[in-house]
């Protein structure tokens, strides 16, 4: 007897059981009791097996590429029995009475090339025994598993469908409450005002409310007090800092990554992009505009260095060792972040679920293929040393499909044109047109800012040389007095060298100025007439500089030889090696120098060295086309994905669980109507993010309490234990940054100034600026951030807060918490003139954002008395200790 295992997932329904031949010993000897009923080893001779083992694989091999979930030629799908029964656009294709008459059979049998399926150029005809199998399956009435999985067709898939326009005045609350009432859920009432203020303040600004803000809100009895508070919070710069961090998670912000000084990933000075994010959010720049600037500022705003900073989004993907890894990351994360598509899954083969072919992957790659990263000087300021930005370096760069994703096997017969997935049911044109760049965009070396920066660098060398020379001269005077002949001789040699260095630095500056003049004359449109003479001057001055350089080399080598001769190295062999090397260097330097003195042809410059690197004068416009396509108001994905991200961060749980995958495997979310409502409003409002935040945080749904009566909680738990329908607000652990920033606020030590270079990640307990400004890169993250589940710099579309003992240790043992406890205790003691009760009242309000409860108050006073000891000799330390305890309170790191 053939024993075959049936997967638990395809457990046959009772009706299907008839089709099985049950083994005689079923359930007794062969099968231990606890294996039943789900793990049956049954002998299959039945018809169900015919479908699963023969028919379905046959159809999959021969038909479903054109008649499946993704493509439905003639409106026909053959990838599930249910769909076969449904038939094609013209009707049924099966005739169970006369199977041979079925169109299904007729078409695979046909001898006409026009009729036969699969068409001759698409596949080999079915063999006669395969046709017999199909026929006998039909004759048996097409038995198939009841629960066969039917993939949704992309056209019908919820996220690919247009966002419906609602005109019925629906709101977040009206939609949710109707779903709740059909499920008999009883939503909790509005949270108390203390809880609400703390919640919304932390949510919108990442900082807890201060005592004064709490007082003000509680005493404001006006009806619109909450709305006005929301408006005020949204207008604070701290809003941008808070929400920038969220978007930095999604957009994979990373400071430069590398080993020691070697850059391996991302870019130096990429903090300019972080500042652009913060500034853009605070200015409420439309979300679609932000996307356009991040993907294609260099094509759309080639002279606007403020906007060019945004292309840090692309620069961040830089990968030193491998261009393919770089572009793969760009493709993967551009599509995940803005579209919720996993285009990356189609690198080696067509996407398994979604309408994205392997060709689509390389089309998408072709959009980015020409681009590279460079560092430009900021035009608004001469802050050294500029900012990283994207540009098209090679408009003719070819993209080839890599066979099975293997970059060692590019298919060179066919270069890929740039494009977006062809079969995605999103009907928006993708139109590329090349852009002629203005001169300042392809000649960034000649902008005033660059020139100033370069000249400053040259001046700095002169200053340094001057400085050293000055010191040696001063020393010479001292030595002259002390009359130490050998020291004086040594010093005078040093002076000689430093003089030469100064001359060299000066010659370099003179030459640099001349090179700028010549380059500018040359690239002026039309070229200036005096170009020839400026070029000549530049050549001469550079020649002179090179000559001083050669002289300096001789002097340096002479000193090097002296050092080698006087070396204290004991190892004779090493000593001799060093000596030989120094001699050789001196010899070479002298030979070269002599050539300069002799005006030898080999050292004569033919022309000056241009400062211009020669960037292309046009850019392909491919990325601009992509940015337009993504942000087209008919693209249903961009707005849905963005709303989901924003919602997830307001509520601690997203509407669509797979935040970066809205493809066919992402089931329709239970509150899709809410998602669509907000997505529609986002587009309609010209992508106004602050308006989106406002709609959400002023909703009743957002304002619900997280706690209620045991009866309500118990009943709601029974219906919706995971709160998928938002009958309560989710209690949540605060983000790592919010915890640290909150400490700084309650300690009164937060340094509020914004922007600037990334701060050393190890100085988080000494530098009291907001956490968003600290270095955030692979293996360069503040330990406290990591322990509280900060974003991984490589990917973090949604954080997953944990509760681990290491977090307790940070809060209990860090220097920072102690410092804050001390400052807080000192401040509140002074404020309350030593009154313990009032101290305790204020402490709870400051740290937890709510009034102290009577039992907490008495326990705290008790703790103070015990800690303060006899005669309250340790009052200060007792108050600090109590403050420290409260900073460790679970509610300090939570929002309710």
């Amino acid at each position, binding site marked *: 007897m053939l024993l075959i295992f049936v997967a638990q997932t395809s457990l046959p329904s009772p009706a299907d059981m008839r089709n099985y031949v049950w083994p005689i010993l079923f359930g007794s000897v062969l099968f231990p009791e*606890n294996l039943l009923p789900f793990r049956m080893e049954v002998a299959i001779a039945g018809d169900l097996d015919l479908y699963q083992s023969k028919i379905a694989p046959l159809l999959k091999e021969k038909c479903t590429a054109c008649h499946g979930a993704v493509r439905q030629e003639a409106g026909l799908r053959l990838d599930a029995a249910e769909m076969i029964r449904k038939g094609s656009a013209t009707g049924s294709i099966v005739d169970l009475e006369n199977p041979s008459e079925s169109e299904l059979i007729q078409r695979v049998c046909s001898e006409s090339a026009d009729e036969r399926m699969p068409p001759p150029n698409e596949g080999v005809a079915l063999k006669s025994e395969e046709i017999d199998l199909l026929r006998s399956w039909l004759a048996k009435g097409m038995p198939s598993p009841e629960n066969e999985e039917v993939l949704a067709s992309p056209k019908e898939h919820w996220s690919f469908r247009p966002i419906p326009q609602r005109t019925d005045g629906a709101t977040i609350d009206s939609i949710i409450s109707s779903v709740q009432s059909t499920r008999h859920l009883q939503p909790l009432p509005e949270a108390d005002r203390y809880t609400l203020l703390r919640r919304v303040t932390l949510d919108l600004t990442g900082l807890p409310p201060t005592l004064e803000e709490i007082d003000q809100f509680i005493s404001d009895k006006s009806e619109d007090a909450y709305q006005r508070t929301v408006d005020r919070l949204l207008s604070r710069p701290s809003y941008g800092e808070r929400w920038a961090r969220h978007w930095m998670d999604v957009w994979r912000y990373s400071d430069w990554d590398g080993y020691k000084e070697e850059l391996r990933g991302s870019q130096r000075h990429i903090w300019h992009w972080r500042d652009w994010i913060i500034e853009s959010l605070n200015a409420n720049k439309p979300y679609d505009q932000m996307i356009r600037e991040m993907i294609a500022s260099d094509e759309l705003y080639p002279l606007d260095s403020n906007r060019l900073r945004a292309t840090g989004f692309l620069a961040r993907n830089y990968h030193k060792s491998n261009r393919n890894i770089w572009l793969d990351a760009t493709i993967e994360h551009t599509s995940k972040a803005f579209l919720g598509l996993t285009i990356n899954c189609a690198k080696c083969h067509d996407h398994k679920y979604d309408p994205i072919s392997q060709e689509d992957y390389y089309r998408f790659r072709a959009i980015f293929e020409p681009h590279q990263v460079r560092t430009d000087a900021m035009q608004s300021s001469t802050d050294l040393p500029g900012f990283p930005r994207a540009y098209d370096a090679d408009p003719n760069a070819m993209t080839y499909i890599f066979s099975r994703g293997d970059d060692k096997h590019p298919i060179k017969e066919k270069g890929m044109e740039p494009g977006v997935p062809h079969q995605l049911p999103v009907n928006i044109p993708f139109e590329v047109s090349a852009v002629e760049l203005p001169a300042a965009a392809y000649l960034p070396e000649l902008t005033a800012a660059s020139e100033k920066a370069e000249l400053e660098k040259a001046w700095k060398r002169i200053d340094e040389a001057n400085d050293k020379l000055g010191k040696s001269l001063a020393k010479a005077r001292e030595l002259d007095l002390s009359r130490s002949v050998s020291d004086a001789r040594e010093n005078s040699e040093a002076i000689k060298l430093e003089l030469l260095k100064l001359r060299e630095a000066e010659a370099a500056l003179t030459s640099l100025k001349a090179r700028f003049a010549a380059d500018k004359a040359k690239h002026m449109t039309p070229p200036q007439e005096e170009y020839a003479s400026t070029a000549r001057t530049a050549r001469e001055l550079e020649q002179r500089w090179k000559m001083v350089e050669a002289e300096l080399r001789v002097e340096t080598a002479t000193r090097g030889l002296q050092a080698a001769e006087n070396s204290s190295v004991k190892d004779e062999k090493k000593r001799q090696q060093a000596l030989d090397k120094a001699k050789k260097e001196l010899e070479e330097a002298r030979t070269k120098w002599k050539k300069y003195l002799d005006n030898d042809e080999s050292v004569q410059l033919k022309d000056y060295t241009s400062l211009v690197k020669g960037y292309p004068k046009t850019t392909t416009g491919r990325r601009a086309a992509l940015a337009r396509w993504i942000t087209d108001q008919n693209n249903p994905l961009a707005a849905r994905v963005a709303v989901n991200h924003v919602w997830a961060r307001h509520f601690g749980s997203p509407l669509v669980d797979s935040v970066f995958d809205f493809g066919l495997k992402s089931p329709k979310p239970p509150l899709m109507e809410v998602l669509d409502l907000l997505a529609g409003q986002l587009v309609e409002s010209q992508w106004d993010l602050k308006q989106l935040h406002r709609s959400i945080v002023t909703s009743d749904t957002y304002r619900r309490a997280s706690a209620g009566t045991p009866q309500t909680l118990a009943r709601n738990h029974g219906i919706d234990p995971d709160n998928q329908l938002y009958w309560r607000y989710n209690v949540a652990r605060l983000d790592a940054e919010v915890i640290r920033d909150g400490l700084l606020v309650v300690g009164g030590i937060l340094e509020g100034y914004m922007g600037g270079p990334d701060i050393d990640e190890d100085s988080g307990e000494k530098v009291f600026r907001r956490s968003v400004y600290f270095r955030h890169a692979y293996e360069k993250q503040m330990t406290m951030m990591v322990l509280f589940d900060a974003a991984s710099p490589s990917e973090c579309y949604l954080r997953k807060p944990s509760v681990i*003992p290491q977090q307790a240790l940070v809060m209990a043992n860090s220097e920072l918490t102690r410092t804050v406890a001390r400052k807080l205790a000192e401040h509140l003691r002074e404020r309350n003139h030593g009154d313990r009760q009032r101290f305790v009242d204020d402490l709870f309000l400051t740290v937890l954002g709510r009034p102290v409860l009577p039992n907490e108050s008495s326990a705290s006073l008790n703790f103070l008395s015990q800690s303060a000891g006899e005669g309250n000799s340790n009052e200060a330390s007792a108050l600090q200790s109590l403050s420290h305890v409260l900073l460790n309170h679970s509610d300090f790191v939570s929002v309710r």
Partner: protein
Amino acid sequence: MSMAAEHAFSRRQLLVDAGLGFGSIALSSLLRQEGVIAQEPTDPKSLIKRIAPRAKSVIWLFMIGGTSHMESFDPKPALNEHAGKAFTETPFGDVLKSPFLSNERVVAFDPNNGFIRTQVYPLQVGYQKWGQSGLEISEWWPHVASCADDLCLIRSMWTEDSNHGAQLQFHTGRHRVDGFFPTIGSWVHYGLGSLNENLPQFVVMGTPVADCCGGQETHRANYLGPQYDGIPLKVDPKNPLPYAKPPADITREQQSNEFEFLKSLNQITSERFPDDEILRARIKSYELAFRMQMAIPEVVDFKDETKQTLEDYGIEQSETKSFGEQMLTARRLVERGVRFVQVYHGSNGGAGSWDAHSGLKNGHSKLCKQVDQPIGALIKDLKMRGLLDETLVVWASEFGRTPGSQNSDGRDHHPYGFTVWMAGGGIQGGIAHGSTDELGFHAVENRHYVTDIHATILHQLGVEPRSLHLPGRKRLERDFGTPITAVLA
């Protein structure tokens, strides 16, 4: 909701609902106190059926990316014999028609790009018989193989996900698209009492699975509540535990007073919010943190280990240092009563280093070098100390690799048949249980889905796996798995 609708909820319904979940236990207590319900709710833990334990702890070694079973613990001479041929040209072409193929929960829509590779790829490494048992194991695993007589190879594993979501599935028993569920380590933590109050019961070492494939959820507790999550431990003897000590001027007594008072404040809050699982977990985490401050640095301080031991684990060589330190720490943890030690190997921010679509020989030989010696040392060390009897070591990967070639020198993902091995903890040594077909394609004899491994672990630890569930959280039959009784000693 109207009052009528309110009453429509029967008292019985309320009782059922009130028993739900964890926080609800506390809720139900309250309801009883208030006279809303009559009976004290049942603690679901009291429903756990205890059986005689055969082991105390588990060391769970997980290779991320999919280790080739043929080139490790299930060598197949037929691959060499038919190298380069299409499956259909071998006597084993039928593997492509097996109904087992439909276990895969996803379908490639383009038949030209299916994932089953059908051209035989020969073994990339030799193999031999080891020990008295003569188990056949590849030459990339000499140290583990030298413990052959203690190994129980389960060569007939299968899973459903042909992509790396299988990493999550291996730990929860559920396909990635079904969502997140408690992992085996968290069930062990939940189901068993603690043996050492100073250490976490479920420790995780190594860089976890990447977000693509389950991320932190491969060691989390999901609906069991965060207090049953695995606790990550970074083994760095120079900095054993960040923030392990308070500032110098804080005495332990002062710290202890603060912790105690903190607990009482948090308790007050917990009474107000009885179903707040996060708060409950945080209270526990503070208790543990206080004790861990002393205990953890001691665990990862190897100064009481002999030079020989450090050498055995490969801690002196750069390629085995990292995993060797983790293995030694694993032994020290179970020695001190930690229940479940989960160690990841091969995290690379994506699918995992073991994912040998190409360059299998080069990649696997390097990776095996990193782990083979430390794992071998662990088994021998446990045995020497008499700990192997009570420690169940499990080695696994999310799936195996295709018998057919991919990219000329690699193998694709393979969920239809692969190997997991166990050692110690009351499991027979020196046996191979179950088998794949001649190509190593399908598990054919004594087939086991991943939860059978979970069930076996729980069974050995003394918990009847079927008694583990929470009211209101439906577990499917498959979630429970079935202990593999045939391999029990």
